[in-house]
């Protein structure tokens, strides 16, 4: 009996905090907007299930797919997340590689330094980038004082600022799995490669990179999945030009107060992300199997 209770705890948790909310959101996405509290109709009525169900429909989904704004926002979000993921990988790989190759006694400190930014609020860190990137911000001041540029660069409120923001914010999620897989590589494998005639740059592509693949995949999914739904960074750094589905959803919900449509947007976003999430799970599973 006690064993069952123990096993039931995580399932109960998932049921109460994931499955039930998901069905609530799904139900709202099938409702109609109303000027009321809550701002949709119908509300759940236990006495008239049949009448309640007959009022639900997929109108909102049809609306999302008929309006190019939403479709574009989805594609734009996927594109921005995809490019950011690649950029994050390019920045994170050398860092993780350096960490894995650093003297053993330094490594815990280096991992600590990677995690350190998490001790500050995410929102504050993104705001800080405004101070760096804006016209009279630190970056422009620095470059102008150095004489590299004469006119301030326009980075704020452009996609570039969004990329910088995402790469910066999600860097630890890429570095840590990369470091974990790089650190596991037996150094004698590289000696063996050199011994068999492979110079270091070749050995990197023949041995190190393929062996770090689980880390590369895990890091990419950990960045890509949340970045797709990101709304704080495009909202604060991207300005009005940057279209991302997370921002659209936020706007639909809080500014437009159209709960049914924003719920439909959220459900579609979830479906879009199910594919990479399933792939991510599979990658994790495969790695666990290989570790055995």
């Amino acid at each position, binding site marked *: 009996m006690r064993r069952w209770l123990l096993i039931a705890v995580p399932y109960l948790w998932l049921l109460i905090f994931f499955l039930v909310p998901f069905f609530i959101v799904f139900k709202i996405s099938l409702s109609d907007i109303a000027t009321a509290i809550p701002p949709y109709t119908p509300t759940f009525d236990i006495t008239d299930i049949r009448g309640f169900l007959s009022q639900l429909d997929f109108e909102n989904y049809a609306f999302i797919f008929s309006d190019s704004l939403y479709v574009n926002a989805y594609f734009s979000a996927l594109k921005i997340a995809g490019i950011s993921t690649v950029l994050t990988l390019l920045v994170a790989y050398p860092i993780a590689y350096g960490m894995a190759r650093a003297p053993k006694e330094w490594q815990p400190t280096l991992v600590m330094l990677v995690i350190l930014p998490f001790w500050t609020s995410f929102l504050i860190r993104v705001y800080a980038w405004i101070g760096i990137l804006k016209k009279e911000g630190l970056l422009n001041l620095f470059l102008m004082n150095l004489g590299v540029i004469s006119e301030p660069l326009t980075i704020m409120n452009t996609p570039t600022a969004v990329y910088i923001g995402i790469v910066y914010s999600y860097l630890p999620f890429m570095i840590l799995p990369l470091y974990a897989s790089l650190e596991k590589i*037996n150094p004698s*494998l590289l*000696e063996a490669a*050199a*011994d068999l*005639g492979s*110079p270091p740059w070749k050995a990197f592509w*023949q041995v190190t990179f393929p062996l770090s693949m689980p880390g590369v995949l895990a890091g990419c999914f950990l960045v890509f999945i949340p970045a797709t739904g990101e709304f704080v960074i495009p909202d604060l750094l991207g300005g009005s030009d940057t279209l991302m589905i997370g921002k659209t959803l936020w706007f639909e919900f809080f500014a437009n107060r159209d709960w049914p449509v924003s719920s439909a947007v959220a459900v579609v976003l979830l479906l879009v992300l199910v594919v990479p999430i399933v792939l991510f799970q599979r990658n994790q599973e495969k790695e666990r199997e290989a570790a055995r």
Partner: protein
Amino acid sequence: MTGAAAQSSSPTSTQPRAVRTPAPQSNFAPWKDPSKAPIVRFENVVKQFGDFVAVKDCTLDIYEREFFALLGPSGCGKTTLLRMLAGFEKPTSGRIIVAGQDITDLAPYERPVNMMFQSYALFPHMTVEQNIGFGLKQEGFPKDQIAARVEEAMAMLELGRFGKRKPHQLSGGQQQRVALARAIAKKPRIVLLDEPLGALDKRLRQTAQFELMGIQERTGTTFIIVTHDQEEAMTVSSRIAVMDHGEFVQIATPGDIYEAPNSRYTANFIGDVNLLEGKVVKIDGGIAEIDWGPGLARFKATAPDGCVGDQAVWLALRPEKIQIDRDKPSDASNAVQGKVVDVGYLGSISHYHVELSNGQRVKALRTNSSRLVDRPISWEDTVWLEWPPETGIVLTR
């Protein structure tokens, strides 16, 4: 090549010893031939790690087709020496010459040597075939040629069925063979083996030793093995360099190392030995008369080079060279009396621990070739130990 190795390896072993293919190889001794140039030459090689001197001024010649063993306890510098030859460590000073070419400054991937790693270091993401073919691929061989050479190496090590498997799907013994196949696939002039059989269990290790020797003979390659297992070194090698604290203590054939150790260190390291401490009283015509302490007759032995009067010396006596008997031998020049304090019966042989009158204990072996039911030697018996004069080696260090 190592006929001597077969008969002289540790007498305590109950395992069947190697019977090496005889005649033409038995006089393989290029190190005695001044016209032969060594394939590997370490020239005053020193390696320091910070303050720690791992290798102290080592000079060593290794000849083509040799199976050369670097033997010593962990931390004696043998692995460092091997890694310097592979190119993973750079000598602090000195030169390393391979086939007449100074390779001291060459990167590992430019050297004509291949190494078999202690951990095997098989690439986990590649199949057995890809692992073995890795070196050939680096040289840019055409695909069909790589496949042929890989197949050849796999056939030699009986790995035919495992070509498509990944290393983690193989047993330890199979992985060891893949690692060896990979090291010989490029047909290097020199194969380096770093404790190649250390991870195998004892029985598998003995089979693997003979396999190693077979492959070394068939390929005609020079093998250099690093090991801390004296039995392994004795079994496989043509010559052994015994190392201690970064220095060579003795470099000789297994037979010479066993029969004529040059120091207490070597005598102790290889096989079982009794060391009797004494003092040289006088030297006459190359024969030293040695005082072994109160209660023991002085006896004579061949004086080693550089031995002077009044010097402390040790007599090294292999247990199996000592005859043990109840009666005083009639015509033995070297005989002492003692009391049996311990008997160990191992079936094929028996160990006797005999205490001499000066308190020193001597171990003697006796093969149980006839059933000694009539007069077995037992605890507390007074016995005579006797050995032919030439079997006792006088050591000065």
